[in-house]
């Protein structure tokens, strides 16, 4: 008993305790898929950050950098994500904000995903063509992201 307490203390002091315990009951395949898709979202956000910074004129417009970011987003939007979204990886899993409604409305999710591919293609054509063209395309791109977040992502602080 005392030894267990010591082990737990060491675990919690090293920060291992909470992580190990929280993940112990999650299927590693599901935990991995959640990490993969959240990393995918992070890559979108990073590249949109470049375009958005220029659109808001917080960083100077640079056609080459804008084109690179837009091409990244277009490429990301067309990746096959089928293994990122296993059934059961919804909000019932700690750290997931994916609503179960996703798996109940797969046709709608796919159609919104196709809208994102189109909006990303519009941005890819526009981003290198000047600040005005970039500014004109960013609303559609944000709207395509938001369309899915509206119905399928849990509200959170």
């Amino acid at each position, binding site marked *: 008993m005392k030894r267990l307490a010591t082990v737990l203390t060491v675990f919690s002091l090293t920060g291992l305790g909470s992580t190990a315990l929280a993940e112990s009951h999650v299927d590693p395949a599901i935990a991995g898929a959640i990490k993969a898709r959240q990393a995918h979202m992070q890559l979108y*956000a*990073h590249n*949109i*950050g470049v375009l*958005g910074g220029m659109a*808001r004129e917080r960083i100077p417009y640079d056609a080459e950098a804008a084109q690179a970011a837009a091409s990244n987003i277009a490429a990301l939007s067309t990746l096959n994500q089928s293994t990122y979204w296993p059934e059961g990886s919804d*909000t019932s899993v700690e750290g997931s*904000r994916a*609503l179960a409604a996703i798996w109940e409305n797969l046709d709608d999710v796919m159609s919104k995903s196709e809208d994102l591919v189109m909006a990303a293609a519009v941005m890819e054509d526009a981003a290198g063509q000047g600040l005005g063209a970039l500014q004109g395309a*960013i*609303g559609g791109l*944000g*709207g395509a*992201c*938001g*369309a899915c*977040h*509206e119905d399928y*992502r*849990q*509200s*959170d*602080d």
Partner: protein
Amino acid sequence: MRLGALKTVAALAVTGAAAGWWLTASDPLPDDHLSAVVGDAAAGEQVFIAAGCASCHTAPEAEDSEGPPILAGGQHFETDFGTFFAPNISTDPVHGIGAWSDMELVNAIQRGISPEGAHYYPAFPYTSYTRATAQDMADLVAYMRTLPADATPSQPHEVGFPFNIRRSLGGWKWLFADDDWVMTGDLDPQLERGRYLVEALGHCGECHTPRNALGGLDRGNWLAGAENPDGDGRIPDVTPDGLGWSAPDIVAYLESGFTPEFDTAGGSMVAVIKNTSRLPAEDRAAIAAYLTALP
């Protein structure tokens, strides 16, 4: 003596019941509320957008289109008290509000009272709209009368006992409806406009402020985040400490839906951004000024 005591108890019971009946009665606006104003439909469109009417009252399957909104109703809202269905408020004379007088409409919007004198559930944010000006309400009504009619019948709410006793909502209003401003003090015109947009038309507090067990807003934690009334998750804290965004960050979000980290708005906020993106830029700046001035 015994009879006397009984009489006293009976008298108290009658008085109590009468007081209860009085407390739960509807309290309409004065008849001359709109007599000094003339509605302007073009101005009313801006009020309609700022008040977010279409977010709840368009049909759930309605797609965004360029045309005027069709306020057929039908969206549902699951809460701790039951499931509420937004009614048809199109100009249809039978299923919508086409046959209502201006005062009937404004009593509905600002007092939560139906033309028959029944109380509406506060899922309809009349406790925020009560702070709106008579001019804005006249403009809003003028605009609503220009919108298309739709003959979809409104659906009844699915609310169990005791919340299905509408009369008791009079007591709820007496306890919790409060038309005083939350932000007080000497405000400059921009802050005053921001307060009007946030506390009255935009009804931000309805989701961003926590509620007590009976659904009354906890004004002591104004806009400090709350449970999501329509599902799991939480509605964010938008006070300066909770949000940590600059005023330009807030303005950019209300216009584009992008957070400072270039995540996008989600959930019900997507519909809100559709409205705030259509407001004049100075209104977005006023909202940001108000939010950054909160304690």
